[in-house]
């Protein structure tokens, strides 16, 4: 019972998400929400390495694209069965992430961000220029939808929605256990002070590498889902702007928080759609919004709410303390 109480917000989210297709037959809404769920999975990866471990990776769109293109090429060109290709796509991204991480994590802070930015750009250039393999600027056409699992097929928007939702739930649960476990606390320790973490016996390089590899796995997973959902891939998904879009989702939602990627991605994706009539002038809203958040709520919406709740609880405790000390004092008289 206490577990349900502790996770009531997540359960409400889940319930709303499960019920949503029952209340609308609008394929457009389902498309947008499904797309936002896919981006959320990728942003969870960015949150793990950037928010919890304190290493801002700007190659995230590159890993997202590796996952997407791996699935696309394996299914379209190599005719590998879908789910086998899906697993391979995640594995390929993870392996590439491991080798990139081995070198990238020898740098720190700004240098790590610059290094990964360059890696991301190289991935983009490879996809863009190697047209014999990737289709280059032409893109990759005809990525198949997920193969049926038993009697469940994934041809309709609703079934795709539930499939992506299932993966999102798995990622959320995994992130919750990971960040609340000792390993998660280790990441936070590295984020707060790598030197201090080393002095208490943490192998920071190994932990950072594990965190980086998990984050690339999540980016690859999201990329593979994206490929079979949109079913057309172009090199622009690996461009650095995509990384900065993900970073915006994370900053708005709350970097280093569990709900941040969920809230930030959903809000920005839906607001972007609702303000579409403004075309490029949308940035007039997003720009000041981002500046406002970074100045006043550096840990985003969720971080802001957590801070507000913490302050309220602190005040409550202080008040109770004062009340109890007054009554003790009165009792003493």
């Amino acid at each position, binding site marked *: 019972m206490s577990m349900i109480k502790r996770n009531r917000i997540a359960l409400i989210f889940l319930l709303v998400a499960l019920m949503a297709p029952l209340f609308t037959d609008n394929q457009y809404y389902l498309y947008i929400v499904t797309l936002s769920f896919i981006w959320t999975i990728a942003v969870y990866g960015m949150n793990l390495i950037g928010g919890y471990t304190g290493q801002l990776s700007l190659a995230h769109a590159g890993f997202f694209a590796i996952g997407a293109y791996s699935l696309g090429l394996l299914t379209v060109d190599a005719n590998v069965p879908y789910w086998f290709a899906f697993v391979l796509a995640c594995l390929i991204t993870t392996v590439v992430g491991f080798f990139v991480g081995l070198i990238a994590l020898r740098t720190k802070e700004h240098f790590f961000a610059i290094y990964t930015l360059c890696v991301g750009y190289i991935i983009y250039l490879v996809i863009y220029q190697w047209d014999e393999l990737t289709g280059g600027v*032409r893109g990759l056409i005809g990525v198949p939808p997920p193969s049926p699992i038993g009697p469940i097929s994934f041809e309709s928007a609703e079934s795709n929605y539930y499939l992506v939702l299932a993966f999102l739930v798995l990622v959320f649960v995994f992130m919750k256990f990971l960040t609340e476990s000792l390993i998660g606390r280790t990441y936070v320790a590295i984020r707060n002070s790598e030197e201090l973490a080393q002095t208490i016996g943490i192998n920071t390089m190994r932990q950072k590498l594990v965190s980086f590899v998990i984050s690339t796995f999540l980016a690859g997973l999201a990329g593979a889902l994206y490929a079979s959902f949109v079913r057309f891939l*172009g090199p622009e998904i690996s461009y650095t702007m995509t990384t900065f879009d993900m970073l915006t989702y994370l900053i708005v939602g709350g970097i280093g928080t569990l709900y941040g990627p969920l809230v930030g991605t959903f809000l920005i994706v839906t607001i972007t759609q609702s303000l579409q*009539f403004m075309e*490029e002038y949308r940035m007039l809203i997003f720009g000041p919004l981002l500046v406002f958040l970074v100045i006043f709520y550096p840990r985003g919406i969720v971080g802001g709410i957590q801070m507000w709740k913490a302050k309220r609880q602190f005040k409550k405790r202080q008040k109770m303390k004062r009340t109890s000390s007054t009554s003790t004092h009165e009792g003493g008289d």
Partner: protein
Amino acid sequence: MGMFLGGLLLLMTTACSEEDPSSTDTAAPPGAPAGSGGEEVEEQTEVVEGTEVVNIGFSGPLSGAGAYYGNNTLNGLTMAIDEINADGGIEVDGEMHSLNLVSLDDQYLPDETGANARRLVQESDTPVIFVPHSGGTYATQIFNEQDEVLLASYSSEPEITQQGNDLTMRIPPTYDAYVEPFSEYQMERFGPKLSMLPPSTEFGMDWAEELKPVWESLGGEVVHEGSVDYSMDTDFFTVVTNALSDDPDVLFVGGSSEPTAQVMQQARELGFEGGFLIMDQAKLDEIDNVLGGAPDVIDGSVGVAPLVYDIHEGNEQFIHDYQEEHGNDPGSEAGYHYYAVYIIAEAMQEAGTVEDAHAIRENLDDGLHQVPEDKRIYDVSEVDEQGGMTTELRMAVVEDGEIELVDFDD
């Protein structure tokens, strides 16, 4: 904090509200079909009071690098729809209908086109959606048959109609039709050595891939295969120098007219005296305008026939009206979109329905032959079984500094 969150939640609610869009529609008249128009979508056209409204969808680049192109395509659609509505609309199955254009910006991104197309179907109930780029076309072809919406694609990529999508209409001619006549003309005039410098876009790569075997089969030799990225490069001397290093007779260029003009000018400045083979995106008249009238630069070029150099009874009024309304010459994007609206409107009348995309698609060829003479912008002979418009093509050549039109047969 609360107010801020409230604002965000309000925006979120707006984005996902289930309200019937027609209730906020200012353009649609009473009696319009449910879901016609909407507050969140842009409308450019005025409908006729007392008629049923048929929404025509558009998803194209209206912001970003492709905005100029996207707006040109939109201008053609808007002009045709305004004219049809000004004439009282179209009579379908005994009832008058007016057309309403609903446009959305996709910034040239296929996943945005996919989202927009679904939005147009769901919120505006559009039986037809215009998409002016191949990536967006592919993204829409994934579901347009399932959702029963006719996709009017402005892409000269042959594959879009070859993959058997029953609800696709290809508006422009396929680019492969230009390759052989352009090659024959330039090889005969200048010689067999070709240097290729297409833009590093999907279209440029496709053109290059088509051109190379044709050029070689005619006995020519490709001496250089490069590309130029207009989104990254601003100075083209290095790539043009490389392209001219093997002393070619003909230089293959293309892309948007503005950077193509710069590449051509720089080639001349570097001493190139051969001919230019220009892919069908750039327009010779626009290139000439960009260069401020430079006959020595464009002399020896071959490209697609500019609309304003091919004036006849079918497009005279359109060109005049376009120039008056927009202050510049219409390009083929505007011309073809304008023509396509008329073909679809006539096909709706022939099919007796404004909703059944299959019936409209089946009647496109009949619709084409019903388009009034003064609206036939191009010499289109048929809409073939695969949905492609077959246009009788002519090419433009520059001889002695003058742009002249030549029939392919000549």
